[in-house]
């Protein structure tokens, strides 16, 4: 079974703090993704990575950065957290060449910025 884990289920941070969200997958997938989910907006892609040390901006990268130093780990960084970054953050991974393009998701991190 593919497993995608995220470092925290719930996180509360103060405005201006630097926040790290960690994601680890155990299936040797090349591709990893960070989304945020907000009511009425669905899932929106923040950043993705096709390989170690590679990163691509998604649809809403502003205020975020990422790091992929190892194949299995993809980190999302909020340099200076703001209240509008309060959201559910979801990490996903998938293998290049898969027929169905299925992405496997972690359980999510509910981040509250106060």
């Amino acid at each position, binding site marked *: 079974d593919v497993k995608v884990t995220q470092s925290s289920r719930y996180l509360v941070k103060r405005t201006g703090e630097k926040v790290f969200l960690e994601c680890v997958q155990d299936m040797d997938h090349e591709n990893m993704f960070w989304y945020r989910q907000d009511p*009425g907006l*669905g899932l929106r892609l923040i950043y993705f990575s096709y390989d170690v040390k590679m990163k691509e901006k*998604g649809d809403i990268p502003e205020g975020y950065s990422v790091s992929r130093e190892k194949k299995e780990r993809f980190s999302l960084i909020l340099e200076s957290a703001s209240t509008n970054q309060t959201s559910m953050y979801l990490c996903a991974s998938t293998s*290049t060449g898969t027929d169905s393009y299925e992405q496997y998701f972690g359980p999510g991190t509910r981040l509250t910025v106060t």
Partner: protein
Amino acid sequence: DQQVKQNSPSLSVQEGRISILNCDYTNSMFDYFLWYKKYPAEGPTFLISISSIKDKNEDGRFTVFLNKSAKHLSLHIVPSQPGDSAVYFCAAIPYNQGGKLIFGQGTELSVKP
């Protein structure tokens, strides 16, 4: 600019009846379409997919229909069960973008006993 739209935020169905969830898209350059199911406090899980060259894919109680001329796809669940109550997201994959998913807003399905 919402390229994938689910215009019904919620749907309520009686147990045993058919649930039909709808999704519209604006871009013809999508390669694959997928449906995901999400329970509260969990990540989405893959349900079923369909290639843009097909018009139907079936997996047990779940069938996805694709109407390319109308840029519309639908997910049929027959018969609906209370355990199907969840938020359903449709998603599309653009050609040559390495599996990047574009999601709709989601439809919350409630199946009542």
